[in-house]
């Protein structure tokens, strides 16, 4: 159907998007790559100098890097388990014909729409504060000692906050996927005497497989670069206990003004994210055919 004429119009219509995105991606990324090989500190202007792989060596051998990498993986892994597991349970529950289903659904998805700085501060102050927080009051009421969440269990606290934000996302996506499940197939299996567990394992779970994979991959992309939640709660501390890769690069860049080091870290973060991105893009690409 596409003639030469419409094809060139189509190209013209796509051009702005393609050119802008290309510029947005290629220019900064190649600058980052270039900076990563320079000795470049904003506090010492005019001293830029070729540094080879020094920045990478410096960044990777810094003990903080290993801590940050481990924290990043622990954060991503734990939040995935909590949000996908909890989200799946919530979705299964919400898919039942319960009273007030629509309202419960609104309650459950609400946290996803709360901006990260608000949720982090609300949790930090009103829940996790060691003296005035609700958790402290609760512990007090039970006769237990109050815990200073953010200084004694900083990473766990951040995992809780971030899971609270992402569980609704998983629940919403999985619930949508559940609703497209073939009812007749379910009823047939039930007539044949398949137990609820078997029906879940053999019909529901396979049906949800793709949605679960999509949720895991998309969450991973976002969770790899959690930032605001750390900035306003623990600032990465105490020490480096709750510093993830994004936050470490941020401290290197905007607090120590070490452009070279931060760029090397940025490239490492890009590589890490790409490993996940490849799987996600394949999966979505496969879906595009049908």
């Amino acid at each position, binding site marked *: 159907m596409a003639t030469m004429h419409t094809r060139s119009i189509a190209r013209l219509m796509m051009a702005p998007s393609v050119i802008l995105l290309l510029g947005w991606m290629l220019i900064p990324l190649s600058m980052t790559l270039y900076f990563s090989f320079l000795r470049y500190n904003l506090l010492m202007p005019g001293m830029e100098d070729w540094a080879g792989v020094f920045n990478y060596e410096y960044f990777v051998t810094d003990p903080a890097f290993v801590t940050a990498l481990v924290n990043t993986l622990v954060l991503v892994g734990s939040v995935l388990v909590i949000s996908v597991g909890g989200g799946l349970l919530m979705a299964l529950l919400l898919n039942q014909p319960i009273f007030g289903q629509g309202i419960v659904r609104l309650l459950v998805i609400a946290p996803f729409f709360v901006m990260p700085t608000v949720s982090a501060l609300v949790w930090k102050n009103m829940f996790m504060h060691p003296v005035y927080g609700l958790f402290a009051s609760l512990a007090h009421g039970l006769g237990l000692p109050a815990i200073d969440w953010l200084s004694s269990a900083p990473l766990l606290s951040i995992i809780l906050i971030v899971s609270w934000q992402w569980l609704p996302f998983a629940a919403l996506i999985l619930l949508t996927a559940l609703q497209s499940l073939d009812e007749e197939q379910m009823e047939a299996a039930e007539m044949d005497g398949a137990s609820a567990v078997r029906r879940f394992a053999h019909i529901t779970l396979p049906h949800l497989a793709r949605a679960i994979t999509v949720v895991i991959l998309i969450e991973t992309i976002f969770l790899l670069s959690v930032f*605001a939640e750390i900035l306003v709660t623990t600032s990465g501390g105490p020490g480096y206990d709750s510093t993830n890769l994004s936050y470490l690069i941020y401290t290197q860049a905007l607090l120590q003004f070490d452009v070279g080091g931060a760029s090397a870290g940025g490239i490492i973060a890009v590589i890490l994210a790409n490993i996940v991105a490849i799987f996600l893009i394949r999966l979505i690409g496969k879906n595009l055919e049908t």
Partner: protein
Amino acid sequence: MARTLTPKRKVAFTVLAWVLGLLIFFPILWTVLTSFKTEGEAIANPPSFLFFDWTLENYTEVQERSNYLRHVINSVVISFGSTAIGLLIAVPAAWAMAFSPTKRTKGILMWMLSTKMLPAVGVMMPIYLIFRDLGLLDTLLGLTIVMTMVNLPIMVWMLYTYFKEIPGDILEAARMDGAQLGQEILYVLAPMAVPGIASTCLLNIILAWNEAFWTLNLTAADAAPLTAFIASYSSPEGLFWAKLSAASTMAIAPILILGWFSQRQLVRGLTFGAVK
């Protein structure tokens, strides 16, 4: 499975769902309640849930102390501005890809998606330096540009999946009836495309409103939207929980309501059409 619940089970599931739902929602509810307390009651131990002296003074004080309205306006300008600009760029692209696809269309879509996966820290330093040199740091223009670029791939994708569902045959039919290109777009395509465009705008506004990496790193006082303004409450001097709660309630309420109205479209946008 859903149709055959015994009444007993239905009640049990209902109770369980409500308890869990309220538990998940509780932090938001607590924030809203705290916003109506005095600072003293906000940190009272044991805390009071409903039986306190309800007051609106936090809402007025937030404005008096920090010119809250300015940050609201910044948020509105950035999220609506980036959505409008994004739409102008994305609609033609999505349109072309949906209605005259070529061999390369799929590759371009995939590549656009991949730019969304680029972690912000990977491009932070150059963007920061470029913005510094161009005088775009802490300006609404700069942040609107960034937000447009950050969300452009999602806009193109979401519009594409909507446009794709408009049947091509209908165009042929209109052409047979002698419709001109302009009429074709105005009377046949536009009514079918509007719902998709509206949902795309909604998702984009929500995402831009809540974005908190670029807003925190590229703004200081002037162009700070609500995400960055609220972060200023993290300083440990003094406890201003009631005011923090009032500022937070106002910051999240409009987006929460928008989000509640657009659940289904959000699923499509957030999963790039993989789950509908």
